[in-house]
C-alpha cells in the first residue's frame, strides 16, 4: 500500500497546503468547465430543462468510486486510511431537506457559489456571504441542541455494512443506475427542447 500519500509519509504543513490549493484549483476548474458556476444552468436541473448537474455529479461519483475500488483491489490505496464522512442519520436527513430548499432558491451550492463569485457573478457572491451567515447562526444555535446534532450517530458507515452486499455489487448497482439515469436525462432534455 503506497497511498494515501499524506498518511503513508508525513507531509509538512506547507506541502499539505500546497496540495490543497492545487487540488482545489483542479476542482474549481472542472466545475466551471462543466458550467456549474452558473446558477441558470444549475436550476435547469430542478426545472427539468438542463440536467447538467446530475450528469456531472454522477459521472464524477462513478469515476471516483470505480477508481477507489480498483486502486484498493490492487493494493495501491489503503482504504482503511481514507476518511469516510461519518453518518448521523437524522441530522443528515433534515440537513439535506433544508439544504435542498437553499439549493433551489439560490441556484447554487456552497462550492459552485464560490466559482460563480470568482467569475464575477454578484448573485454567487451574495450566496457565499449568506452561506457563511447561515453556518455561523446554525453553529451558534446548535449549541443548545447537541442531542439532535449527534442523533443516530453511526460512524463511517457504508452501504455495504447495512445491506450486507459486497462493495463491488453496490458499485455495479450505482453504475447501472447512473447509466440508466443518463439515458433518461438525455430523453428529458430532448423533450424539453423539442
Amino acid at each position, binding site marked *: 500500500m503506497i497511498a*494515501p*500519500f499524506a498518511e503513508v509519509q508525513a507531509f509538512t*504543513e506547507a506541502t*499539505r497546503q500546497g496540495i490543497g*490549493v*492545487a*487540488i*482545489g*484549483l483542479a*476542482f*474549481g*476548474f*472542472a466545475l*466551471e468547465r462543466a458550467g456549474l458556476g*452558473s446558477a441558470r444552468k444549475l436550476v435547469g*436541473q430542478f426545472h427539468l430543462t438542463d440536467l447538467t448537474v446530475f450528469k456531472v*455529479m454522477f*459521472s*464524477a461519483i462513478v*469515476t471516483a*468510486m470505480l477508481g*477507489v475500488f480498483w486502486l484498493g483491489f490492487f493494493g495501491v*490505496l489503503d482504504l482503511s486510511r*481514507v476518511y469516510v*464522512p*461519518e453518518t448521523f442519520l437524522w441530522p443528515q*436527513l*433534515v*440537513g*439535506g431537506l*433544508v439544504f*435542498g430548499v*437553499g*439549493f*433551489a432558491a*439560490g*441556484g447554487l451550492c*456552497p*462550492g*459552485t457559489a*464560490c466559482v*460563480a463569485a*470568482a*467569475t*464575477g457573478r454578484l*448573485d454567487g457572491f451574495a*450566496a457565499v456571504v*449568506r*452561506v*457563511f*451567515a*447561515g453556518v455561523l*447562526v*446554525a*453553529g451558534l444555535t*446548535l449549541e443548545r441542541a447537541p442531542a439532535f*446534532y*449527534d442523533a443516530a450517530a453511526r460512524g463511517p458507515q457504508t*452501504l455495504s*455494512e447495512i445491506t450486507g452486499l459486497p462493495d463491488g455489487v453496490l458499485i455495479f448497482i450505482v453504475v447501472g443506475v447512473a447509466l440508466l439515469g443518463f439515458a433518461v436525462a438525455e430523453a428529458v432534455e430532448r423533450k424539453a427542447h423539442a
Partner: protein
Amino acid sequence: MGPDRGRAYADPYLAGVGLGLVLLTAFVVMGRGLGASGAFASGAASLVGMATPPYAAQSPVFVRYPDGFFREWIVFELAGVVLGGFLSAKLAGRVRVEIERGPHASAPRRMLGAFAGGTFMGVGAVFARGCTSGLALTGGALLSVGAWVFMLATFASAYAVAPLFRKSWR
C-alpha cells in the same frame, strides 16, 4: 440552451469524469475528499473563537475546527477552487460582472433568492456536516450511508420547492 457568454461549456460527462479524477486524486494523495462548507464552518469557528473563546469551545459544531482558519486544509482547497474557477472562466472568456437571472426577472428578486438560498444552505450544511461537495460527492463515491441519505433528501426538497423560484429565471 447554450451559455450566454464566452465559449460553450464542456461535455458534461467529460467534465464529470475530470471532476471524478480530481476527487480520486484527493483520496489518493490526501486520504480525504473535496469540500466547501467545511471552510465556511472553519471561518465561523475562528470568528466565534476570537469573539468569545469559551462559546466556540462548547459548540458541538465549532469544536470540530480547533486549528484556526489558516491551518485547515479545506480552506486552502477552497481558495484553490476560487482560483481554478476564475482561471477556467478567464480562459474561456466567461468572466463578467453581472447578476445572473432570467431575461424578464428583476435583479432584486434574484438577489433575494441567492440571499435566502445561501442561508438555508449554510444551516443545512451545518446539520448534515457537509454539503454537495464534501458530503454528497465525496461520501457518495465512498458509498457512505449518510452521504446518500443527504443527497436524496437534498434533491427531493429542491424539486419540491423549485417551482416557487422559477420566476427568477423567466
